[in-house]
């Protein structure tokens, strides 16, 4: 008998609710790294929701821009380390485009901390846990300042 029926549902603790963060992960390295963090049960805050992309080369800077303009609290992008991209130079183009986006967003009224990109290989589940935890902290501190 699976533990399907859980204890009576409590109203989610409002201030405890972790901020919702959209994370674009590349299929060959970072998504596998995130899966590995799962298989090794590395606990993480519950707000990060992953969108799979074939490579960070696919990352049109408009996606994080659209997410933030529509009100997302935070956006993360992660792919293979430069030099290890499965598609050779996808992440090398992405690095330039996302760095330009990162410099542009604050100018438009988005706190600098709301968007970040990083490189996580298929074996760096630990580092992914650290990135998610640290990023969620940063977004929480931003929301704290606001209200």
């Amino acid at each position, binding site marked *: 008998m699976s533990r399907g029926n859980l204890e009576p549902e409590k109203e989610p603790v409002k201030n405890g609710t972790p901020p919702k963060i959209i994370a674009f992960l590349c299929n060959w390295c970072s998504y596998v790294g995130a899966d590995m963090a799962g298989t090794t049960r590395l606990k993480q805050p519950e707000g990060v929701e992953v969108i799979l992309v074939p490579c960070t080369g696919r990352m049109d800077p408009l996606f994080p*821009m659209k997410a933030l*303009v529509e009100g997302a609290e935070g956006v993360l992008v992660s792919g293979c380390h*430069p030099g290890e991209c499965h598609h050779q130079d996808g992440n090398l*183009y992405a690095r330039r485009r996302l760095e330009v*986006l990162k410099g*542009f967003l604050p100018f438009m*009224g988005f706190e600098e901390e709301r968007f970040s990109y990083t490189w996580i290989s298929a074996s760096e589940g630990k580092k992914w846990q650290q990135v998610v935890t640290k990023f969620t902290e940063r977004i929480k501190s931003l929301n704290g300042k606001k209200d």
Partner: protein
Amino acid sequence: MAGKPIEMRNKKTKEQLENLKTQVEETLSQVDFVIGYAKGYDVLHPTPLFVRSTKDAQALIWDDFCINNLATYLPSQKRPGGLFHPHEKIGLVVKGCDSRAVIQLLQEGIIDRENFKIIGISCQGKVDVKKLKNRVPIERVENAEIKEGSIELTVDSRGQKYPLEEVLYSKCLSCEYPTPLIYDRLVGGEGSLRSKGPKEFAQDPYHDVEEFEKKGVNERLDFWEQEFSRCLRCYACRDICPFCYCQFECIAQTRIPHWLSQKTASKENKFFHMFRAMHLAGRCTECGECERACPVDLPLLLLHKKMNKKVSELFGYKSGINPKLRPPLIIFQPEEKNIEEEKWE
């Protein structure tokens, strides 16, 4: 500003006009038509002129208001839906700032060098009609003349004077290329490559961007919220831009992909202008036409100057200067000098 140099300025402008007419006529033999400036509906608004014969050339003008960046007509030459036919040859009158747009279009390979002839013309700075509009009802202007370092407008038959540095385009006040960087022929100032352009009013080109960056993040958010609530989405800024040559296929109006709706809510307008700034990163040559074309006077050049500042900080790249360079966002370096990976400890 003693009287003498301004007479020099008007004298030079007149000389350039005569010289321009002969240069255009000579170019006519090599091209199908030449695009220059003609008198518009009033003295402040010259309009692009398509010269196909020496008779047309007589209507050419050259004065302190000829501001249009005529390079915006070059890409339409190649596009399937464009007005001109790909094999038609075009002549173009090009100022210093416009020449950067020509070079950037060459860098992007959207135009072929042998399909057009450039008539470069060195420039002494142009008067920003929007700066006049805030001072006097320009809809009833009758005459405008440069006298002793300032411009004199007659409106409702009354004269009003304004110092030049108050009314020149801000891009002219910080102009680094008064003489075109690319040309087949050069009008005015054959001799000195660096004619006495508006350098004397020199200002740091990015001072307005730095001012804006000093503001708090919420102040900046509200500013853009306020500005973009006025945008009509008429797309004049996009359609006048020399680099928005995917104008007829722009994702601002497509459903596949469906990035935004046609609603003129401030959020949708903001996303349109933001993604246009992203598309122009490392390409825009700051000619300021988008800001001039905007019917509701949005500070659009500020957006693109911020992007260019970021691109030059990251890649040391300045758009439209060196025809051999590839634009920064369609190339990469295995090791990026100015980009470090974020530390997560």
